[in-house]
């Protein structure tokens, strides 16, 4: 054999010995309608250029293969009678494995090594190749099928692009809109005219980079122009909905520990005057609809960087994730064109969060799953993160003269148009239009920048930091320099490849990058730190006093905009809104088998165990978790919320509780928002959080801003946020909205239901009771007003029938129940909030967690259906050895309903008889929902 030349691709395919069938893929194939495949075997492909044969052999058994369990096929395909499919990333898509290999091998052999990774599938049995590639072997948004054994030269090379100028001075409004559409600017006619006026006045023709910069800065995603717009609602005119409801409540409450609200990446709350926590929850809906794995992973990565970029930098310590998708058992043939199956979305988002969160070493502590047909086209992914920082690092401001430093990953063409794309509706063409706005993350790069930023902060080397999120450098530098001015030289930005247009460098949303403002004298030290943390760093410009945003690419000036116009020029939006009409509801079908209903409820994916998701997330990494996602000595039921020690060497704990209630929004969005806030607080209390020190976050995911009824719902939800916030004295500190979650398929526009996620966080100062029964013989109490109303409950979801009335909330009573319960927390051996599925599900969950049963009698004055399944608010089930809890908790509704039993049976006595639920059978239902 002749010696291999270094400039030839070496092709290595790695299989597990014995070529085991990939059962997971077999199942996916089956689900996509292929029951005939006999085998799918998956192999990993490495294409390597730059290694000599000797160098390859030196590394083979240590890098490319574990000789004990794996076998290699070098420069050849395995002998296989069936079909072979090879999948490669599209040019320009992040390949973290290849990047890592290039770095490690390059460092070791001290030369440049090129790597590409692929997957090889060996299939046996009949299958439709096109279908398989599209539905279960790859995602065409980021990957493509290639000829097995082939090579691709010019990986990720593009033609050189030039700077375009647009003559818009004499364009009509229609022509302007064409420009907006063709460039995916998502700007409306009024906004385009405002831009035309600005450029006409400054006697210039805008460049592509300038139009893109304005579009990103003015996007719904960045500036929230709808929520800050002027709403017409019934006879009211509401100027700036956000400011007049949610902000106003925060101002009125005026909590001194909330040291930064609504003006940074995340809200900041002081714990003890010296130390603070910050929280942010983001949505990453559109990218996750198209590429669930990358979308959810980069969603989490993005919110972690939000925390890292808060103040002068906060350390990410815990994260949360909430998914809303279609039902996993949706029939494949019912899917609208261009959408992914809910099962695939769920699998993708769960693995995305798992791979990103676990790899950066931040525990994923809590979450929720909502399934509903209306999320089929527009699934929702919420990702949140809590960070810890010194109070003195809470404020930031870039000073004129500070160097603009970019650190982290290299910049490529990935992730263009994220902000504008995510602000628009999805349609059947989104799949094609969005290529590039969907990305794969590199968690290891993120881990490195986390370490580097925190060190730079601790050595007090920086004046400001922010993450490169939507809009890339354009919005990061634009925001940081909005009060001063900034000059950027794009030729200094480290690039993934040579051929990339200047506006693309400026707008690219390549992941894992941070921008920091550093005084000249500290630049060398910052470089040293980044070097030690093995992450890229470069000076790309300077903040100045110009009041302008100026961007150069070598000699050419590609952006020259007034900061004032950029940040204040967006025209006010007028929003028409109205109250939706609610249809009459039917009467509850008396013949319903109330016993079977409990099993059906327990097997709903929304209520049933989320073990199949949660066990894949590391919820204890960093070693600070106190209350994890599971509860009870059997760890079989879920916890209400989560709690963790704030930081090493500190005593304080933080608790987190979530609230989300989509069902009731169909009838009343005011109640939906109020109930969600109240539920979040009850979850917080059950985890030991102090409601008196709690703060809230809002995340609105809504339908179209052109839909008056959807906007009416938004007004009602915002008003409820204000009222509830004032009622409990808990301020909102941060929020985010994602509008236009609609899908155009032909003539039809499908919309998501109004969805509001409420996150509550507070310090935890007590030891919290279990969320499952823990002491047999203890008395079981229901705290809170008697339940009434089943409309919008999980019960009606199962019956597929709209019946009954929606429950009421009485603010005074609710507040009293919450605070009194918290004050008496130490008296309880266990406590659990009553929410989805009502008291019956609450009792069942408390049994499942520990294996203890209960003997419960429904009070004669209560209706059986209401008692068991109403989801009316302000209620807890709690247990204690004290027989007279009624006396201890005066002024609060409280009823003794039974006792905890050793016998593993949940018995509920009604007027008509006794229902018995064996724990084994409940377990069967509770663990049945998984994919």
């Amino acid at each position: 054999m002749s010696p291999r030349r270094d400039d030839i691709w070496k092709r290595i395919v790695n299989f597990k010995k014995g070529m085991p069938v990939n059962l997971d893929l077999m199942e996916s194939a089956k689900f996509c309608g292929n029951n005939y495949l006999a085998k799918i075997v998956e192999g990993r492909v490495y294409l390597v250029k730059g290694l000599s044969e000797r160098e390859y052999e030196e590394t083979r058994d240590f890098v490319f293969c574990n000789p004990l369990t794996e076998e290699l096929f070098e420069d050849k395909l395995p002998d296989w009678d069936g079909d072979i499919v090879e999948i490669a990333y599209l040019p320009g898509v992040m390949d973290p494995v290849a990047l890592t290999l290039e770095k490690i091998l390059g460092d070791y052999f001290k030369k440049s090594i090129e790597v590409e990774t692929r997957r090889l599938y060996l299939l046996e049995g009949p299958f439709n190749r096109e279908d398989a590639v599209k539905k279960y072997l790859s995602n065409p948004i980021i990957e493509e099928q290639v000829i097995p054994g082939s090579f691709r030269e010019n990986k990720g090379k593009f033609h050189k692009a030039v700077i375009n100028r647009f003559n818009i001075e004499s364009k009509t409004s229609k022509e302007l809109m064409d420009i907006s559409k063709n460039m995916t600017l998502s700007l409306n006619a009024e906004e385009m005219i405002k831009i035309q006026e600005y450029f006409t006045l400054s006697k210039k023709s805008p460049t592509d980079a300038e139009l893109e910069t304005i579009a990103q800065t003015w996007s719904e995603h960045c500036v929230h122009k709808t929520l800050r717009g002027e709403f017409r609602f019934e006879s009211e005119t509401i100027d700036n909905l956000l400011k007049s409801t949610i902000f106003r409540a925060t101002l009125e409450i005026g909590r001194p520990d909330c040291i930064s609200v609504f003006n940074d990446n995340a809200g900041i709350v002081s714990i003890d005057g010296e130390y603070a926590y910050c929280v942010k929850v983001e949505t990453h809906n559109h990218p996750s609809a198209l590429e669930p794995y990358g979308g959810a992973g980069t969603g989490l990565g993005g919110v972690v960087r939000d925390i890292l970029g808060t103040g002068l930098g906060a350390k990410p310590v815990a994260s949360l994730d909430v998914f809303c998708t279609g039902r996993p058992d949706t029939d494949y043939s019912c899917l609208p064109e261009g959408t992914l199956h809910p099962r695939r979305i769920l699998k993708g988002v769960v693995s995305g969060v798992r791979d990103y969160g676990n790899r950066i070493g931040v525990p994923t502590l809590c979450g929720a799953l909502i399934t509903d047909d209306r999320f089929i086209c527009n699934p929702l992914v919420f990702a949140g993160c809590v960070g810890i920082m010194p109070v003195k690092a809470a404020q930031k401001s870039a000073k004129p003269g500070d160097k603009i430093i970019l650190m982290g990953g290299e910049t490529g063409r990935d992730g263009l148009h994220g902000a504008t794309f995510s602000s628009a509706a999805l349609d059947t063409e989104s799949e094609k239009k969005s290529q590039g706005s969907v990305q794969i993350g590199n968690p290891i790069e993120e881990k490195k920048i986390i370490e580097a930023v925190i060190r730079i902060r601790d050595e007090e080397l920086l004046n400001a930091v922010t993450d490169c999120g939507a809009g890339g450098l354009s919005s990061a530098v634009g925001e940081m320099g909005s009060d001063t001015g900034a000059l950027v030289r794009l030729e200094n930005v480290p690039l993934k490849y040579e051929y990339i247009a200047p506006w693309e460098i400026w707008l690219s949303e390549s992941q894992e990058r941070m921008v920091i403002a550093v005084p000249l004298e500290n630049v060398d030290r910052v470089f040293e730190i980044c070097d030690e943390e093995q992450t890229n760093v470069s000076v790309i410009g300077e903040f100045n006093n110009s009041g302008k945003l100026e961007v150069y690419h070598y000699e050419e000036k590609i952006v020259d905009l007034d900061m004032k116009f950029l940040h204040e020029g967006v025209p006010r939006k007028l929003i028409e809104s109205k109250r939706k009409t609610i249809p009459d509801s039917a009467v509850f079908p008396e013949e319903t088998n109330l016993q079977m209903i409990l099993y059906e409820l327990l097997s709903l994916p929304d209520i049933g165990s989320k073990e199949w998701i949660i066990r894949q997330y590391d919820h204890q990494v960093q070693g600070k978790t106190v209350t994890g996602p599971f509860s009870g000595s059997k760890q079989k039921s879920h916890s209400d919320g989560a709690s963790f020690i704030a930081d090493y060497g500190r005593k304080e704990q933080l608790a987190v509780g979530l609230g989300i209630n989509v069902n009731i929004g169909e009838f009343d969005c005011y109640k939906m928002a109020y109930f969600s806030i109240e539920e979040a607080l009850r979850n917080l209390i059950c985890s030991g959080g102090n409601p008196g020190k709690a703060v809230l976050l809002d995340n609105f995911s809504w339908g179209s801003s052109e839909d008056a009824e959807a906007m009416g719902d938004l007004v009602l939800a915002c008003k409820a946020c204000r009222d509830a916030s004032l009622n409990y004295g808990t301020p909102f500190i941060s929020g985010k909205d994602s509008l236009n979650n609609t899908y155009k398929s032909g003539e039809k526009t499908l919309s998501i239901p109004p969805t509001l996620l409420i996150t509550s966080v507070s310090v935890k100062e007590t030891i919290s009771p279990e969320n499952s029964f823990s002491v047999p013989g203890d008395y079981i109490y229901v705290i809170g007003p008697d339940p009434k109303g089943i409309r919008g409950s999980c019960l009606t979801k199962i019956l597929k029938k709209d019946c009954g009335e929606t429950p009421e909330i009485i603010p005074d009573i609710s507040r009293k129940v919450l605070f009194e319960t918290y004050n008496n927390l130490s008296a309880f051996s266990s406590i659990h909030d009553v929410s989805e599925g009502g008291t019956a599900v609450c009792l069942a969950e408390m049994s499942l967690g520990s294996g203890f049963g209960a003997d419960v009698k429904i009070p004669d004055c209560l209706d059986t259906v209401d008692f068991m399944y109403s989801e009316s608010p302000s209620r807890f089930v709690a247990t204690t050895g004290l027989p007279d809890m009624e006396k201890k908790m005066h002024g609060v509704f409280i009823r003794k309903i039974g006792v905890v039993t050793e016998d593993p049976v949940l018995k509920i006595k009604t007027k008509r008889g006794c229902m018995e639920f064996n724990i084994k059978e409940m377990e069967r239902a509770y663990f049945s929902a998984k994919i």
Partner: protein
Amino acid sequence: MSEIRGLVFPGGFTYGDYLGSGVIFSFIVRTGIESALFNFIEKKGKILGICNGFQILVRLSILPFPGEKPSVSLEVNASQRFECRWVPIIKNDALLGNFDELPNKFFLPVAHLEGRVAFSGTEALERVLEKGQAAFFYGVEKPSMKYSENPNGSQNGIAGISDPTGSILGLMPHPERILDFRQYPFGPEGFKEPVGVSFMRCFFKLLEE
């Protein structure tokens, strides 16, 4: 290395575990400090590997028999999934003389995708069992193969392995995550301190030898 008494390879996805758990980190160790590390081992230096650290020690063939041909690998869990859960652990004190402060039975969390102890042949397995090198087992009363007591399908329920002298110990569960009683959901079992604290104390005591 001459100053060092003990080495800990902690958990954490080194280099993302791209190409397999601990592959790249062990390559860097191998190409950087291999001879110094084996000198350290020869002088009875103490090494602890937790989770990813255990995977690295196995991949470097430091466990179970330092310097011999590799005979164990840590493979993808039998469930084919990442598993984050509490597992019952049984201590085998044959070689862990200094771990007497650690209770004989307790719970620890695991969090890994590749934790299934797989021997390349029965000979290596028998040697490990015979010499008492299987330091920890999954199981309530006796070593278990039952999911989820045994979270990954490890052969003979083995959760941790030491070298033949008891100087080097690697395990998949995370004792360092339980340093506070509040983190332990199984109620007090008469332990005088959290399991993780006992564990680390025992390891530090070992260093004083």
